[in-house]
């Protein structure tokens, strides 16, 4: 004879992920490393923005964890520029989570205080849902993607601490509606600043770097 019993659980399914993310964040904090989770669609300009920021802060030590479904194209590009980078290939998974980041963070020798960029998988959906050990989330969105993105992918815009609008030189060619874009973000996030940049010329990155210096 068996009995059926009801057990109240009320346990967050992210709990284990969030615990590991906090562990990573705290262990990096101890060695003076500030962690930036870089999110955005494929081709938004995540790697190009990272490179521009690194070039604009020559006094700083930088580390990069590159997340991609496949390939090490971006890691090779960063290493050729002398940037300390490691590659994660998720082989299909659409976002990085805390356990995988913790494993790869141990593979970089972060011998000096500095900034660690974790470039998430190119995807405007799932990366926003998982903490990976970051201090801040940086959202990269390009004008070519269209000004309706905050309405279509609200969580990424809501969770961002800083937003970079890239490829601003293309605005006139893609009919980018500035007001519509900014209105969408305002309804989701009243605190994240929006910086307009052009990674080809480096325009706008001075302001981004000033913001990072102030907020790290």
């Amino acid at each position, binding site marked *: 004879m068996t009995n*059926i019993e009801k057990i109240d*659980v009320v346990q967050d399914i992210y*709990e284990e992920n969030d615990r590991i993310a906090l562990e990573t964040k705290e262990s990096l904090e101890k060695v003076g490393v500030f962690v930036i989770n870089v999110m955005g669609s494929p081709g938004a300009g995540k790697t190009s923005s990272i490179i521009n920021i690194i070039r604009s802060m020559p006094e700083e030590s930088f580390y990069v964890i590159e997340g991609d479904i496949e390939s090490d194209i971006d890691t090779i590009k960063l290493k050729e520029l002398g940037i300390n980078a490691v590659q994660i290939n998720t082989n299909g998974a659409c976002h990085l989570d805390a356990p995988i980041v913790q494993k790869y963070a141990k593979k970089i020798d972060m011998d000096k205080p500095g900034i660690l960029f974790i470039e998430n998988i190119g995807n405007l959906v799932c990366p926003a849902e998982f903490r990976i050990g970051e201090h801040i989330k940086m959202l990269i969105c390009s004008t070519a993607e269209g000004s309706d993105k905050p309405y279509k992918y609200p969580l990424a815009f809501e969770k961002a601490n800083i937003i970079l609008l890239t490829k601003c030189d293309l605005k006139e060619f893609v009919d980018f509606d500035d007001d519509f874009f900014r209105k*969408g973000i305002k309804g989701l996030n009243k605190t994240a600043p929006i910086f307009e940049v052009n990674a080809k010329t480096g325009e706008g990155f001075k302001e981004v770097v000033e913001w990072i210096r102030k907020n790290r």
Partner: protein
Amino acid sequence: MHEYPVTEQIIKIASEKAKENNAIKVCHIALVVGEHSGFIGESIQMYFDIISRGTICEGAILEIENIKAKWKCPLCDITYMRQPYSFACPKCGQDGLPTNIGKEFYIKSIEVEVP
């Protein structure tokens, strides 16, 4: 792919709770899934049926309670569901702010068989 690791986590939590209570089988799992949690109930169910095989959770019924996302108007102090392409409060027309209503993703309770 997206729901696979979280489904593993659901089975892990339910199995641990069941064992703590000396249960031999999990019959029912009540999940709360917010509209903006990013997870789809049907997809979790599909992975659950596969991953739970051979575990204490095999054959359990997943009951998914969906929660609609709500915005809050700081001026009118009301919560509301937003209209497409708008975040405006239905009362005053000002843009409100997102809330945590609709971001839930947790196991509310389980039902287990105990000898």
